């Protein structure tokens, strides 16, 4: 039986983990590769790197981070942030990323999703959607960390990119991101119930119940979280055991 996935996400800037990770047994809490190895051992189902390096010129460091991670961790790795071209995707895949997530470039040019999926296969193209509620039951896409509105309806956009060949959606509620008050379940569900591709829920996780809700009530196939894992509040194993006790199918290898 296919299992629900728990995905820790690391924000990486200039090759270093932003905000740091608070673990025991970690040589260098700022090294994404060390953090990745810890999550690999802890039983994370996938790992996500979000690159927030400001300058496009400095992205060489990211490729090196991805390469070193793929050498040490035999688990799926998604990399996103600043992916603008087919060439960016190719470089990340060759460095060892399994999936590449695209956001702003897809909003600006929907055809980029189709082109990427045709070139590399849907299985490695994740479309990231940052959405904010604009009225009851209605969400719109925002870019640039939630600062820039686009006026695009999130549900319609999700359906559109799925039809263009996206293999997965990474859906973040910008209303909930960083609040630790839980996913925006109505958003997750509104999108999950209208697309046939896998969906990762993100934004707002502050407790283990929130992870359960994302799968059970939001109908997501995976849940992504950052701070509850990075700061050692919960281990991946604790999260997965809790979700299994709540009746969700989890991988406990």
């Amino acid at each position, binding site marked *: 039986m*296919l299992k629900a996935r728990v995905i820790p996400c690391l924000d990486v800037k200039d090759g270093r983990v932003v905000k740091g990770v608070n673990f025991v047994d970690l040589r260098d809490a700022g090294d994404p590769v060390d953090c990745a190895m810890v999550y690999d051992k802890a039983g994370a189902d996938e790992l996500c790197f979000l690159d927030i390096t400001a300058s496009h010129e400095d992205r060489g460091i990211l490729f090196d981070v991805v390469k070193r991670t793929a050498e040490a961790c*035999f688990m799926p790795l998604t990399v996103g942030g600043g992916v603008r071209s087919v060439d960016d995707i190719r470089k990340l*895949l*060759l460095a060892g990323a399994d*999936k590449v997530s695209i956001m702003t470039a897809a909003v600006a040019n929907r055809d980029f999703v189709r082109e990427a999926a045709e070139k590399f296969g*849907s299985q*490695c193209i994740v479309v990231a959607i940052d959405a904010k509620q604009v009225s009851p039951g209605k969400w719109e896409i925002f870019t640039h960390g939630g600062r820039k509105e686009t006026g695009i309806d999130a549900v319609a956009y999700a359906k559109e990119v799925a039809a263009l060949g996206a293999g997965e959606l990474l859906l973040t509620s910008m209303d909930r991101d960083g609040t630790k008050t839980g996913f925006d379940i109505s958003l997750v569900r509104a999108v999950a119930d209208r697309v046939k591709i896998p969906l990762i829920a993100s934004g707002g996780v502050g407790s283990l119940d929130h992870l359960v809700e994302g799968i059970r009530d939001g109908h997501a196939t995976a849940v992504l979280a950052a701070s509850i894992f990075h700061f050692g509040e919960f281990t991946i194993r604790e999260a997965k055991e809790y979700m299994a006790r709540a009746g969700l199918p989890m991988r406990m290898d």
Partner: protein
Amino acid sequence: MRIVIVDYGSGNLHSAHKALERAARQLDRAEIFVTSEPEVIRSADRVVLPGVGAFADCKLGLSSVSGLTSALEDVVIRAGRPFLGICVGMQLLASVGLEHKTTLGLGWIDGAVLPITPNDPSLRIPHMGWNTLKVHREHDLLRGIPLGDHGRHAYFVHSFHFKPDAAEAILAGTEYGGEIAAIVAQDNIAGSQFHPEKSQQLGLAFLENFLRWRP
């Protein structure tokens, strides 16, 4: 032992390389080559064919390297060296693939590559994530790996699946609204639909078994 990973422009060989390197640690004098050169492929003791993307693109990639397919046939079919196809590399074993258009495969294991059509409409495509395996028959490739509903998991990501004509070709299946072939094997030829290089303990154990396999 000369282990050759066939490079024909299909995506991420880096992970497969590193995982095989890790799996080969237990073996004496294992050397790994990533190459598209027919002569190096002919000299292989083990051949690994990775593959990501669409069936037709991968087949085109194979055919466009001059002499590659005939080198593979020499070393795998004629010399009988153990072969492992991964994901689309496994699907290429089929006689034919029906992704986007009809494309002939290598035809080493009779069967077709078809879209996944789960009998449960709530199941999403691609089949993406960790799934358990159901053993059809005992095999050296599965040795020592706890499988079944409570066993270890393998990482899948695919929208099409290989349906061999002969059910005996399937060593292990996985459940996703119907059964999907997870591992196929016939004589010295094997393939996994999942990604062993991304499947942590199960994946490394499976690769190690492949390196020790004496078909």
